[in-house]
């Protein structure tokens, strides 16, 4: 890792330099929630945001997108991508993207995802947890890779970690904006990280979690929550690691059609439906439990399918709390 310092007064220039790279998207406050929007001026951004409603996955797999276009009876691949800068990603969201990488960049590589990933510069930013965050217990509160540049707040600027050759090139090209890191900066960085680590209010104890959950398959707690759950699927839409998609063909005129994919949710009744009307997850209980099992699966190479961002809690209309459910299920065993 290389560390450099961006003094506060150069922040605007640095931001503008990123616009040479591509369109810049950053966290913007809209009503009560934040979302990643195109920004032209750093003042439009809310850099102290807690979390956006939709995670950055929307830039790589859209809520609805065309993958193939039918012309004269043959499919053509949709290839347009634009260079993009995602500014201000939190560490948990960077981990979320790494989990998606594990899916989409695994053989066979999803070319749409790959192209967008390659065309996107990721600039991370440090954050303070709110009452929903539990990334620390999952080890996703600090990103060691998966970004090009990562900005850590200092009293008089930013400590920048450079995470890729591309990030290095950008810093190099605008070398006049940066300074060397001093001992004082490092002390401030450490102080910030310590304060942050002590600010987490929610925790997910993971010891033996996966086995406990599996053993508690018939726990009444699943049932209790499945009855409260509205089955709206919000928790899937906002989750940075949920990725189920549905595909359908749509005619655009008498001669042409497109094949589109769009987000799907395992809370929808037809998610487990196959021909002949057989449903492998017919009840709300089956579907509720399935989501928790999917999120709590531990892949030795990629970790959990949950990064502790707290979105599913904040945006659940039934106020169901992810950690609360898991802890209660675990507790029901004793």
């Amino acid at each position, binding site marked *: 890792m290389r560390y450099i310092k961006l003094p506060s007064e150069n922040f605007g220039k640095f931001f503008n330099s990123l616009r040479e790279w591509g369109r810049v998207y950053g966290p913007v406050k809209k009503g009560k929630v934040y979302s990643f929007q195109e920004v032209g001026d750093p003042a439009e951004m809310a850099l102290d945001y807690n979390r956006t409603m939709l995670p950055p996955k929307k830039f790589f797999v859209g809520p609805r997108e065309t993958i193939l276009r039918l012309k004269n009876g043959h499919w053509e691949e949709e290839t347009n991508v634009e260079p993009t800068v995602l500014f201000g990603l939190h560490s948990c969201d960077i981990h979320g993207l790494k989990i998606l990488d594990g899916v989409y960049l695994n053989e066979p590589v999803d070319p749409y995802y790959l192209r967008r990933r390659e065309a996107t510069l990721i600039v991370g930013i440090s954050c303070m947890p709110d009452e929903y965050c539990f990334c620390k217990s999952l080890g996703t509160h600090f990103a060691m890779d998966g970004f090009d540049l990562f900005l850590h707040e200092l009293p008089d600027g930013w400590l920048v970690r450079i995470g890729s050759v591309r990030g290095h090139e950008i810093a190099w090209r605008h070398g006049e904006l940066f300074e060397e890191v001093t001992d004082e900066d490092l002390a401030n960085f450490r102080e910030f990280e310590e304060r942050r680590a002590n600010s987490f209010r929610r925790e997910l104890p993971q010891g033996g979690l996966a086995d406990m959950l599996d053993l508690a398959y018939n726990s009444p707690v699943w049932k209790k929550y499945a009855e409260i759950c509205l089955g709206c699927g919000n928790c899937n839409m906002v989750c940075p690691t949920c990725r189920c998609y549905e595909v359908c063909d749509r005619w655009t005129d008498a001669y042409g*059609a497109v094949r589109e994919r769009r987000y799907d949710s395992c809370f929808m009744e037809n998610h487990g439906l196959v021909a002949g009307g057989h449903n492998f997850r017919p009840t709300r209980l089956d579907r509720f439990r399935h989501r928790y099992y999917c999120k709590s699966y531990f892949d030795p190479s990629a970790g959990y399918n949950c990064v502790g961002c707290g979105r599913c809690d904040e945006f659940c209309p039934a106020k169901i709390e992810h950690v609360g459910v898991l802890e209660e299920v675990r507790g029901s065993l004793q």
Partner: protein
Amino acid sequence: MNPYMSHDARILEVKDLTPREKLFTLRFVDPEVGANFSFRPGQFVIVDVRGFGEFPISLCSSPTRKGYLQLCIRKAGRMTKFIHGMKEGDIIGIRGPYGNGFPMERMEGSNLILVAGGLGMAPLRSVLWYAIDTGKYGHVHLFYGTKAYEDILFRDEVIHLLKHGEAMNCSVKLAYEVESPSCIYLERGFSDRVCRGVVTDLFRGEEFNVNNTYALICGPPVMYRFVIRELLDRRLSPGRIYMTLERRMRCGVGKCGHCIVGTSVSIKYICQDGPVFTYWDALSTRGLI
């Protein structure tokens, strides 16, 4: 290479197998694609009816018979109804093959018990012909349960094997549920091998050498539990029981998430980890069957 892009395949022949199922014989338009297409029994392809959608279908021909592919497609809904309306010469898209297929090499030299229920005959037909064509297996038993005489898939082949299978080291047993003159006629001719009942009835009186036998099952979801019980009663190891499973599938390549099953300790993608699993997999992964 875009993994979602299908290859043109021409329909060489459409044959009615039953009132609900048709057999489509296909050949890739590009000979190079055809030459590079190899598969093992138990694998499936995704059929692309351009502008209407895609759906997964098992390969029901054997890789030993080259130059063409066969798919047995039941009219189940929108897309399969559309393809039932297609004719010889029409072009569809095929991508794949996908999935793991049956471990044909591992089973070489052993006896095979193929247990088919209804449409489950389709993927097992691929195994059946593969085993007969290569001659690398011990005795091949086919236990096949259908609703009625009209529903027997590949009826000519099944009846041919019922009559002459022994010469090919293969024996067939058939169970039907709905009585009809044709069934009674068959039952009279082969009273030891044809009966009215369900597929598990065919196990009555059967014993086999569990150290030298593999069972391969494919059928409707309800069938697995009962067939597996018959096999376990005869002490066949869960590791020697293979079954091919079905889920809703969109991508076929581990991306769309539809076919995920399991819990916090074991998650499987039916499209990539399967569709063939052992009964041991089912014991260790909840929700598989």
